[in-house]
């Protein structure tokens, strides 16, 4: 395992009597997508604002890309990109002028800017919007422009605070494609969302409730711990061959009148290859894998966690 690119220890924020974030220990591996989940008021945005150095913690340590954010908050800014819940584009300036303004802040200009912005403009389908002012653009396009701007200077770490809130499914899907591409290129992405099914697009999931971490694991590990597990159903073909294959795949097998079913908390190594072999041998067999939904996983995470009244 490599050194975490984001690390907090005992990170806390109190507003008067109210503890918004309570002794958070986070570790994010470089080049991964880290999902930070929780409901409204759970402490997500407070945490992200501390991580990017715009809110001083009450206690605790933060390191982002080698920088001590608590003591030198300004130094972190060149390393990170940030998109807040409210996209901050200047009204009265065209989108292009906004791009030049932000690029200027990071010393990006000339051919380098054209290359980078050109690629983002195409990826986010913003060519038609370039000459228009943000206030004249639909919310979904503004949101796309906001995400494009946050990655303009090719930051090492990207902080996205609910980038998919209030956007249509199409933009949501595009955002996740881009986020995965950026991570594949080595960028670390720290993203908050209240769409829990989006956890599956990420490498790691931390779930915060009332300021405390109640889950911190890869999505598959949470699924294994907090669900009834995977179900594989085989219909048609020879039921005995199906049962043998599911057993060989490491599943607990039960026979129903119309199908053979197997269950397992996680998909054991080799199980998928076993299913593929079964289908190759039994072309009439219909094999279906049911994965527990993330919403159900988090329902159980929340009901199992000790909750303050």
């Amino acid at each position, binding site marked *: 395992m490599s050194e975490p690119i984001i690390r907090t220890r005992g990170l806390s924020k109190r507003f008067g009597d109210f503890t918004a974030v309570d002794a958070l220990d986070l570790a994010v591996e470089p080049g991964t997508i880290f999902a930070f989940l*929780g*409901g*409204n*008021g*759970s402490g997500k945005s407070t945490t992200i604002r501390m991580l990017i150095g715009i809110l001083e913690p009450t206690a605790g340590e933060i390191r982002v890309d080698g920088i001590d954010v608590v003591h030198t908050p300004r130094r972190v800014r060149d390393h990170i990109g940030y998109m807040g819940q409210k996209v901050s584009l200047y009204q009265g300036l065209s989108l292009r002028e906004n791009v030049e303004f932000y690029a200027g802040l990071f010393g990006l200009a000339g051919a380098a800017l054209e290359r980078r912005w050109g690629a983002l403009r195409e990826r986010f*389908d913003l060519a038609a919007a370039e000459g228009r002012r943000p206030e004249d653009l*639909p*919310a*979904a396009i503004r949101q796309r422009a906001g995400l494009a701007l946050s990655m303009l200077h090719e930051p090492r770490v990207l902080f996205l605070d609910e980038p998919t*809130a*209030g*956007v*249509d*499914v*199409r*933009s949501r*899907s*595009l955002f*996740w*494609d881009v986020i*995965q591409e950026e*991570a*594949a290129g080595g960028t670390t992405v720290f993203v908050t969302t*209240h*769409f*829990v*099914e989006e956890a*599956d*697009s990420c490498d790691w999931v931390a779930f915060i*409730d009332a300021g405390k971490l109640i889950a911190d694991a890869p*999505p*598959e590990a949470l*699924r294994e711990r907090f669900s009834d597990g995977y179900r594989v159903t085989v219909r048609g073909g020879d039921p005995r061959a199906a049962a043998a294959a599911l057993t060989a795949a490491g599943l607990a097998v039960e026979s129903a009148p119309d199908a053979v079913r197997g269950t397992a908390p996680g*998909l054991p190594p080799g199980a*998928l*290859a076993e*299913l*593929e072999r079964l*289908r190759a041998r039994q072309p009439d067999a219909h*094999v*279906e*894998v049911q*994965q527990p*939904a993330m*919403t159900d996983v*988090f*329902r159980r995470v*929340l*009901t199992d966690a000790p909750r303050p009244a």
Partner: protein
Amino acid sequence: MAGVGPAEPLIRLRGLTKRWGRRTALAGIDLEVAARAIVGVVGPDGAGKTTLLRALAGLLEVEATEARVLGYDLRDDVTALKARVGYVPQVWSLHRNLSVEENLRFTARLHRLPEAEFRRRSDALLERTALAPFRDRYAGALSGGMKQKLAVANALLPAPELLVLDEPTAGIDVVARGELWSLLAAARASALIVISTSYLDEAAGCDTLVYLDEGRLVASGTPDALRARVGLECYRAWGGAARDIACAARRLGYVSGARAAGRYARVDVPAARSPGDREVLHDLGALPDVRFAERIPVDMEAALLALSAGHGGRAA
């Protein structure tokens, strides 16, 4: 003439239009809802969802060829309609400095509910929302999920025939969302429920969906019917590195989109371009690191994606 006759649909809209100055928020909506159900209103931000909900609740002056809700004409005096409608706006609008019970009592007074009836109904609602232990707590001090449950309980208290909810579950946790939905499932027996949501699982749980975009009704029908209409095939390719598999799948000429989701890559193939599922499964199975490929039914995300692509939604 007031009230809905036995044969009349609960909602009947023809050419419902709402303009704010030069901006057209609703551009001629036709919609008919015959019986009690949970009707989900979905679509991108700015599609007109909130405007449609407010119109149905009798809160807006509208233009239309026909606009009847519970038998009342939205273009006439809607005072009597409003008494039969429960409306939960997007912005939480209860009284923070009143307790849970006082909020309910306030609503009961507005609707002139007798004390005994108030007791009976509010006890039942507090029980069902699990808010009973918090009846003396200030509403302002409730958690996000509890606030929303109180808002819905409050709207249900006068036993409305139509319950209109504007994104009641936005941003609240999955447990509270589940509780709210059981509340709605119970209320469906006595009321028509119209709800807007951006959660795909909730959209899938509605009896009927209405998809709006740019003030127009793009499609409506049961979730199954909408899924069936979509000319798309969905596949999953399971393997070691799902993100690499998604990348490789995108290079297949007929694939319109692919994304890693946990241990598999989700692959979409437009039906018009598909060489048939056997071939697709074969191609996916031949990608590096793929151990198992399967076709899956079209899900809500794919259905709504296709709807948004067919209309206003811009190509990715």
